[in-house]
């Protein structure tokens, strides 16, 4: 297996690109691909202030590394969820994230949910009866709220997340199976800040396979948390990823094609009517000011009200 660029020893075969690369050329190729996505989807410029949401995993830490190599002045935001399990998940992921930031002299903001709201994510899920055994929806809601809030407070122009192609394809697959048009219309590489109170959100890794991200982290020597969140075991999204990987094994490029043709259909206006309807329904939450489509308080504030009343009841 020889590198297509230099003829040296190839270490990775990118079948969907019909490209074999050695370590050095692969580590050069990856930032080029990320830069290409940033430009293609008009995500941000070197003059804008960038906040990267980092979890301690391979995708977000590699993304932060790549953005730094590309010369973008990117700060990090770590959200401590208070998830334990046998691997002390949150504790270990914070340690690795801090280690990464310190080694490179990068600015890291840390928000611990338990310090900010008095309870960890699993405790909030349990006390609000929102997924008492699997707090993933509560976790997502809290993270989205904090990410947008911290980006606004910090004066950042854009919030960057490490969602890779496999993440995007799995979400798209699930939403297509359910014809969840409301979710389909919102999925894309860029979520524009065209609503007051919302910071632009972008996904520069949306065209990069998860396998490539894992390879980049390994070959770059980035130490990341190998263990999975204990609540992710048996998650539907992982099942979808496995199904898509079987498809990809027989048809290299199938995942990328699935995602890119979806974006093309969306750009052609396939979901335009639904998008207009969704925008009309949005209004600022009277409590936190972030946009919401539900009457009254947003889902986050409504959930936190339940936490407050629960604590007030003497538990």
């Amino acid at each position, binding site marked *: 297996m020889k590198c297509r660029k230099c003829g040296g020893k190839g270490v990775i075969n990118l079948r969907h690109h019909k490209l074999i690369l050695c370590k050095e050329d692969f580590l050069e190729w990856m930032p080029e691909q990320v830069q290409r996505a940033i430009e293609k989807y008009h995500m941000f410029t070197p003059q804008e202030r960038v906040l990267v949401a980092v979890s301690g995993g391979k995708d977000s830490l590699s993304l932060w590394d790549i953005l730094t190599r590309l010369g973008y002045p990117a700060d990090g935001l770590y959200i401590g969820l208070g998830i334990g399990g046998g691997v002390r998940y949150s504790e270990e992921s914070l340690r690795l994230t801090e280690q990464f930031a310190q080694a490179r002299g990068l600015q890291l903001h840390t928000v611990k949910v338990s310090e900010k709201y008095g309870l960890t994510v699993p405790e909030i899920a349990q006390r609000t009866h929102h997924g008492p055994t699997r707090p993933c929806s509560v976790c997502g809601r809290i993270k989205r709220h904090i990410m947008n809030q911290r980006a606004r407070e910090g004066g950042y122009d854009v919030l960057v997340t490490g969602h890779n192609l496999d993440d995007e394809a799995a979400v798209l697959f699930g939403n297509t199976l359910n014809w969840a048009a409301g979710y389909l219309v919102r999925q894309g590489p860029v979520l524009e800040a065209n609503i007051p109170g919302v910071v632009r959100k972008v996904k520069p890794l949306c065209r990069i396979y998860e396998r490539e991200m*894992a*390879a980049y982290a*390994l070959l770059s020597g980035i130490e990341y948390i190998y263990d999975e969140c204990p609540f992710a075991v048996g998650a539907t999204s992982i099942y979808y990823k496995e199904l898509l990987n079987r498809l990809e094994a027989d048809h290299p490029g199938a995942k990328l094609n699935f995602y890119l043709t979806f974006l093309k259909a969306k750009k052609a206006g396939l979901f335009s009517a639904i998008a207009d309807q969704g925008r009309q329904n949005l209004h600022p939450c009277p409590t936190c000011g972030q946009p919401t489509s539900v009457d009254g308080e947003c889902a986050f504030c409504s959930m936190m009200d339940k936490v407050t009343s629960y604590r007030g009841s003497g538990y």
Partner: protein
Amino acid sequence: VLATRNGELIPEDEILNPGDVIKLVAVISGGSCR
């Protein structure tokens, strides 16, 4: 998974030798939260 040896990726056409110490690294991550 990715197969590694001493922190380096093992090319898919490489034949392993008896005694080689191989580490398999999981690629898939993320749950409903992502």
